[in-house]
């Protein structure tokens, strides 16, 4: 199993500011995924972060709004830029297990934008 440490666990931010969320994994993984979960909703994939290359963004998500870094095989950051109240969500990082048959999720970052 993979142990994922995600921080901060929650934050309250002002409109127009940016927040960087960190995700640390206890083992090396090729792919890391960033998901958004809006209140009471399902999980929506924002992007896939691959080490050594630019992140791949899903439809509706752009790099200027959600820049991602992946400096090594155990760490990634997601920045939510120029925040608005619509960005209030839970953001989760996830990684495939070693058997590549399941996803492990971080504990999530609950973001509230005022």
């Amino acid at each position, binding site marked *: 199993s993979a142990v994922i440490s995600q921080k901060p666990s929650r934050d309250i931010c002002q409109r127009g500011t940016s927040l960087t969320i960190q995700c640390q994994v206890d083992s090396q993984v*090729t*792919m890391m*995924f960033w998901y958004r979960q809006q209140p009471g*909703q*399902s*999980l*929506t*994939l924002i992007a*896939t972060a691959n080490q050594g290359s630019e992140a791949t963004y899903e439809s509706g998500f752009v790099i200027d709004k959600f820049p991602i870094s992946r400096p090594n095989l155990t760490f990634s950051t997601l920045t939510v830029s120029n925040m608005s109240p619509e960005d209030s969500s839970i953001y*989760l990082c996830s990684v*495939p*297990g070693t058997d*590549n*048959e*399941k*996803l*492990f*999720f*971080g*504990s*999530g970052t609950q973001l509230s934008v005022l």
Partner: protein
Amino acid sequence: QQPVQSPQAVILREGEDAVINCSSSKALYSVHWYRQKHGEAPVFLMILLKGGEQKGHDKISASFNEKKQQSSLYLTASQLSYSGTYFCGTEIRNAGNMLTFGGGTRLMVKP
């Protein structure tokens, strides 16, 4: 494309059974099932890869139909601990677990 989950919500008494369905308009490579309790991260339950497959552990099992377009999660003799939101996550092709999740089914088990 997001899979369609039904029902959206279920309320059960302890010991009752429930079925949650997950449907896709296209044949799937895999279906994953996850449970998320309030304020916690989703937790993996099981994965189905083969058409016609059935698998499970304890009183939670799942099936994947022959056409690989529908999966069902079966919860039998439900316990209070089964309460939470259940999500199916799907892959159209082998993409390293890059999942598209259904809208979720909220399950509440009452004493």
